[in-house]
Every structure is written in C-alpha cells, then in structure tokens.
C-alpha cells in the first residue's frame, strides 16, 4: 500500500493479512509465512500498520460509562429485591426479625464486618465499572506505544482481579502468575506481532519487570520464537534488555526486564 487507502500490496498476502492481524489464522504455517513476508515487504507492512492505526483510532473513541440510573435499573432487574445482593438481603432479614435481636447483638461485630465487606465490594465493582468506560479508549490509544509507556491500565496487586479484567477485554483468559519474590503492580492491553497480548507489570524489590502473555494455541508465533513447551525459560538479551520466554498450556510468556535485573532472572530460574 503506497497511499492513503487500505489496499493490500500483495495479492496472496491480502487474503491472509486481516486474519493474521486479528489473530484468526488457524494454520501456523500460514501465520509464519505471513510473518516472514512482512519482514521483507514494505507494502504489506504498510497495510498492517494501516490496520493497526485504524484499530487504534476506533478503540480510542470516547466511551462514557452507563448512567447511574440505568445501572441501578439493570441491577434491580438482575438481582432480587431491588438490586440487593443475596448477602445483603440476609442481613436485612436478620435485622428485622425481633427474635433474632439478641443474637444480632452478639454477632454484631461479625455482621458489621460482613457488611463492610459487602459495601467495599460494591464500591470496588462500581469503581471498576466506571473506570472501564474511560480507561479502555485511553489504553488502546497507547497500544502501539506501550513499550515506552510506564503507566498501568489497571493497578492492582490482586491476580484474580487482573485476570478478570483481561478476560473482559481479550478473546482469551491469560493466567496472571504469582511469584513469592515479586509484587504484582497491574496490567494493560498490548499488541505483539499484530496479536493482542496481556501486559502484566511486577516489582521485584526495586526492579520493575514486565510479562507479556499471548494465547497461541497450537500456532507457532514466530515473532516471539516458540520455545520448548513449559519446561524452562530461555533467555535472550538485546539492546540493554533481557527477555525470558517460555510457553505453557497454549500460552506464550515473555518476561522482559533491564539487563541489570539479574535477581529477577535468577528467581525465575529457581521458581519458574
């Protein structure tokens, strides 16, 4: 593609490029062939860039969260008793029953604790939901720039929460590894080789490192160099950074850190 249009450079590549970009090429050999071709063909590379730009532009469209009134209305449709969660409902029943008054007093501490958990849970859910509306376009705007961006889309130390967050945004559910020697900081969406990836940020002491997770299934993802399945991380080094990469259960993992972050790689070697 040489001008301002979306016309593919090579005919054979044209039929595969969009599926490649969308991560929908089922034949690993075809994916590898397209990937190789993209290294050598500026025209098709420009097509891929155009697809990425268009995708980024679309994802950067402003998204506003659902109004509170609509949220409450939907909540009341989904949840029994006007939107109360089941545990809340039980709490109300207990408080309204005279015979349970004494027991309520005895159990007040426990109930208050439970109520606080419910309140905090709902607040967290609402905050997460509201954040999604404004965060997604901003995230996606940075998709092609993530390697130079040090922010996190979802800052959390909770691996389950981050997994859930990724699951809502990706067409795969990336596992978020937890290592005793590292602290989870957060995650964001990313693109590697035209395929969506989960980018997970960690801290090990004062060292920051990043883990990219992609779902490849049986596909050989040549841009990441497929490695021996699940046995040991292979380590490579270039341009001042080190990367350890491995695959497991259809996912490819690439851990990237500054080349001086040897303790990270040492820990990874001990506890992969």
């Amino acid at each position, binding site marked *: 593609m040489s001008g*301002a249009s979306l016309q593919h450079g090579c005919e054979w590549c044209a039929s595969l490029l969009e599926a490649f970009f969308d991560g929908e090429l089922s034949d690993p050999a075809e994916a590898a062939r397209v990937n190789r071709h993209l290294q050598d063909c500026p025209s098709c590379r*420009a097509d891929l860039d155009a697809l*990425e730009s*268009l995708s980024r*532009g679309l994802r950067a469209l402003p998204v506003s969260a659902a109004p509170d009134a609509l949220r409450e209305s939907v909540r009341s449709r989904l949840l029994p008793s006007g939107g109360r969660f089941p545990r809340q409902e039980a709490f109300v029943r207990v408080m309204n029953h005279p015979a349970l008054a004494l027991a309520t007093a005895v159990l007040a501490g426990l109930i208050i604790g439970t109520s606080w958990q419910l309140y905090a849970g709902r607040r967290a859910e609402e905050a997460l939901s509201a954040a999604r509306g404004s965060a997604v376009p901003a995230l996606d705007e940075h998709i092609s720039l993530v390697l130079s961006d040090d922010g996190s889309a979802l800052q959390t130390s909770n691996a389950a929460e981050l997994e859930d967050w990724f699951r809502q945004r990706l067409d795969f559910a990336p596992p978020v590894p937890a290592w005793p020697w590292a602290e989870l900081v957060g995650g964001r969406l990313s693109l590697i080789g035209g395929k969506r990836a989960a980018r997970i940020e960690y801290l090990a002491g004062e060292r920051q490192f990043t883990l990219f997770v992609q779902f490849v299934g049986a596909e050989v993802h040549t841009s990441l160099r497929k490695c021996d399945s699940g046995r040991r991380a292979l380590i490579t080094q270039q341009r001042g950074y080190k990367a350890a990469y491995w695959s497991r259960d259809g996912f490819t993992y690439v851990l990237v850190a500054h080349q001086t972050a040897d303790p990270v790689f040492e820990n990874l070697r001990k506890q992969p």
Partner: protein
Amino acid sequence: MKRAEFEHVALQSLDALLGYARHLARNEEEAQDLVQEAYARVLAYRDKVQHPGEARPLLFRILHNLFVDQYRHNRRGPVMISVDDLQGRAPHPSERIVDPSTPLSELLKNCLSDEMQCALRSLDEGLRETLCLRELEGFSYEEIGEILEIPIGTVRSRLSRARREMARRLVSILAGAPMLQAEPGVAPPRKNRSL
C-alpha cells in the same frame, strides 16, 4: 453457572453493551432502551448459560436481535452525519491537506475521534456492527458469527469491507470531500433464530 456469577458477569458487561447499543441506535434514549430490554430478556436464558464466558456474547446476541426488530420496524436507512456537523468541534476538513501518497497509518495519526465517529456512523449497519464487535468489543470471528448468526466467512468479508470503507470515508472526511453514501449490497441485519 451460579446465579451470582451470571449476574456479576452481566453487570460487568453493562458499559460495553451500552457502547455497542450507542453505535447501533439513533440516539442515547434508544440505546438505553435496547440495553434495558436486553437485560430483561437475558434472565430467561440464565439457566442455560454454563460458563461465565457465555454470558457476555449472549447479551450482545439479544441486543442485536432487539436492534434487528427495531430496524425492521422502522425500515430506516443508515444514519448519515454530514461533514458540516463537525464544524466547531474539529478543524474544518478543508483546512487539511491530504496528500494521496501519504500512508493511511500516517493520516490516521491526525484523525480526531469526531471524524472517526462520523465515518463509523456512516457505515452500513451490518458492517458497523461487525466492526464494533471486533474492534471495540474484541470478540473472535466465531463469536461474532454466533452473535450475528452469520458464517465465519461472512464475518471475515464484512470486516474486510468495513475496514476498507472506514479508510475510504476517513480519507474523504480528512480531505473535506462530501460524505459518501453507504456502500450498497450488504443485507440488512438478521435476527438470530435461536433466540
């Protein structure tokens, strides 16, 4: 799938579902009505959902069907937004100089969200829906096929056409050319028979 889990996933999909509805509907009120109705109807399928991952596509399928019903009822053409509407919100398109040799990726770097929105709204419904499901919601080809009840090959060709059309319209908008009519020949959206 547990009821609480279903409700949690369904509630978490609210913003995305409303965003999708906004891309289909003519106005905010219509979009919110579609969403309300989708949630009212999804309850009937709650017991059939086995895995959390099924709840989200189900909501989109239901909303798609509601939209199709509405589309058939109204028999309306694609929503058109005049380039003139962008005046005051964005630099006048005629102030831009679009070099036809400029790569699209370079052009799009300067594209404003108003212009992107304008091009998207001008697409035929079938193309717009498919593009939104892929690019904004991240559904796979297979999931899009199930939501819209079309074969994967059709998903693929629609996406390709949608992207080409988007590029063509964005270039027109950036160059200050009159808004192009929606590309003819795309069948009106169909309803899922299974819902």
